[in-house]
């Protein structure tokens, strides 16, 4: 589904991704962990096509297409979704209008009929329930004045609505209280399917207790330095990153 090979990328003239190899198969859940500033969000942004990142080497294919050649909206239309580490506030842009524009843009790009107002509202009510979100959020501007937790839940709510093939969750757990974490994790788990894959970026084991990953990777200084099963996350929780770094250097 996703194959990244030897990916290098610069931000502001500085090399942040330094030869990254990574692949995800259908239905798989991959966790990416790693110290602050190691390039996790950069990787997520490069995959979703944010401007300002210069790819200097390597490739990324998604569903057989050259991902890096596509516009951000084309990637989303293909089925890629990024839940932002820092969701953006859009003052004045009504949430319902936004969600409808997003869903219909994707449906249209796929040659499927757009939803009318009634079926859209029905769908949206259903998804709101899954994330225990209040429908008053629909009347407000996108993320504007939302609490940290509401923003994160709103990201997963959008994911539930847009039903991507590959979702990248960038620290969706940070800023969530314990109950909200549970709700979000349940929401994510409800979306798991043999076709839908996920990349879960997190610093904490706790999220991975709920969303059990098939693979865990450690990203450090722009490279994957260790991959393993879910037990790797437990080991990291216990020993920190220094341990792998030291091992990596020794090797």
């Amino acid at each position, binding site marked *: 589904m996703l194959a990244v090979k030897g990916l290098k990328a610069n931000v502001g003239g500085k090399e942040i991704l330094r030869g990254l190899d990574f692949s995800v198969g259908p239905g798989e859940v991959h966790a990416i962990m790693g110290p602050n500033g190691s390039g996790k969000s950069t990787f997520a942004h490069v995959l*979703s*096509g*944010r*401007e*300002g990142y210069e790819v200097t080497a390597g490739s990324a294919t998604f569903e057989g297409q050259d991902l890096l050649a596509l*516009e*951000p*909206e084309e*990637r*989303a*239309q293909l089925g890629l*979704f*990024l839940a*932002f580490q820092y*969701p*953006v506030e*859009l*003052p*004045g*842009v*009504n949430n319902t*209008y*936004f969600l409808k*524009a*997003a*869903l219909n*843009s*994707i449906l249209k*790009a796929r040659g499927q009929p757009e939803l009318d107002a009634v079926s859209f509202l029905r769908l949206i009510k259903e998804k709101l329930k899954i994330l225990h979100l209040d429908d008053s959020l629909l009347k407000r*501007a996108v993320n504007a004045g939302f609490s940290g937790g509401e923003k994160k839940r709103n990201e997963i709510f*959008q994911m539930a609505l*847009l039903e991507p093939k590959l979702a990248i969750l960038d620290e969706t757990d940070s800023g969530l209280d314990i109950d909200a974490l549970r709700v979000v994790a349940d929401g994510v788990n409800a979306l798991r399917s043999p076709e839908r894959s996920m990349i879960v970026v997190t610093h904490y084991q706790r999220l991975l207790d709920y969303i059990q990953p098939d693979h865990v990777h450690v990203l450090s200084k722009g490279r994957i330095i260790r991959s393993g099963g879910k037990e790797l996350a437990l080991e990291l929780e216990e020993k920190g990153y220094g341990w792998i770094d030291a091992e990596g250097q020794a090797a």
Partner: protein
Amino acid sequence: MNGVISNGFESWLAAPPGQLAGAGLDWLDDQRRVARERVREQGVPTSKTEDWRYTSLKGLLEQNFAQVDEAITALQPDDLEDILIPGLDSHRVVLVNGRYAPELSVLGDLPKGVRLGGLRTLLDADPDALRDRLNRIAGDRQPLFLALNTAGLDDGFVALFDRAAILERPIELIHLSVGMDEPRVAQPRHLVVLGDGAQATLIERYVSLGESLYCTNSVLEIALGRDAVLQHDRIQMESANAFHLTGLYLSQDTNSRYRGVNIGLGARWARTELVTRFRGEQAECDLQGLYLAGDRQLMDYHLDVAHSVPRCTSRENFKGILYGKGRAVFDGLVAVARDAQKSDAAMSNRNLMLSESAEVDTKPQLEINADDVKCSHGTTVGRIEPEMLFYLRSRGISAPLARRMLCLGFAGEIIQTLSAEALREHVSERVGQRLESAPLN
């Protein structure tokens, strides 16, 4: 300013065939005569004239606008079909090329104490009702375009509310321009007087049939009595080839409330002057504005708000979206007199630039001579935030639609201050259409 006799506006001053409204009324003839003299003594403003520093009259002077000399009577109510706003239920007054068109107007049932209609009609029927009101708020030392309007004062719209009169439905003033064989200038004169405690909503619209070249120079005087409340939505959607000038002169008595929402979408060259005078304490004046300046279009706003008495509140909140070689001017002055303690004023002008070649001159000024006041001003000139654009695009929304959504989001703050949902929808839709045809850079 050198006493030029012929100043380029002679054709605007030429006496039209037939008589001007109320000819023979001494007070009115005098006002027109004084105004003619004012025009002649002023000469044409140049780039050295303070109020015209950023705005050139060259394009306007190149046109030889003749006065509108005949009423257009061929229009049928059906011709208004594309102009009416679905779902807007109003007392409708229609002017065509500056003249009251009773056959197109639907005044509806009016409560006691409310008079609505054409200025000329009222001047014929009851000149005394206008004698102490017309041309009073605008004052004596009239600037050029106000003086031109007064010199040719002939027809327009009048609304007179007695004490405590309240109108539930809005008054909709439709100023319709229809192209003629040669370019014409229409100079309607409007008067709105709300007695003590009266309340009304006025929707003032400038629209055209076709994209013809013409000029509108309208003047509106508004007097609000004690405790009077007026919501005033002004929607300028003139033809893309038109010149539009409008001056609003507002006088507010104690505890009156005025909210004006100025939407400027049309005309190739548009100048709006808003002048507010507080006559009594605790009055509130809220001026909101939204303008779109597209390629080679000019939107020019001049605000002059004088806090001359204590404890009044004013808000000046203008937002602009500019693209192509669009230009805008925001020149806002809030002056607080020495005795006007506890004045509260906040002025803001924010601009969203969609192109490199668009330009805005923004000059908010506070002149504060009292010490116990709360006054602020701020301006911004910015672009669409890349991370906002990326957020939308990452959800599958195309870049052009994403830009439009962000622009409408920016404009929404002003649009939502309009009085009716039907109107808000109408304006949002037009703003969206304009942006849709806008080049992306």
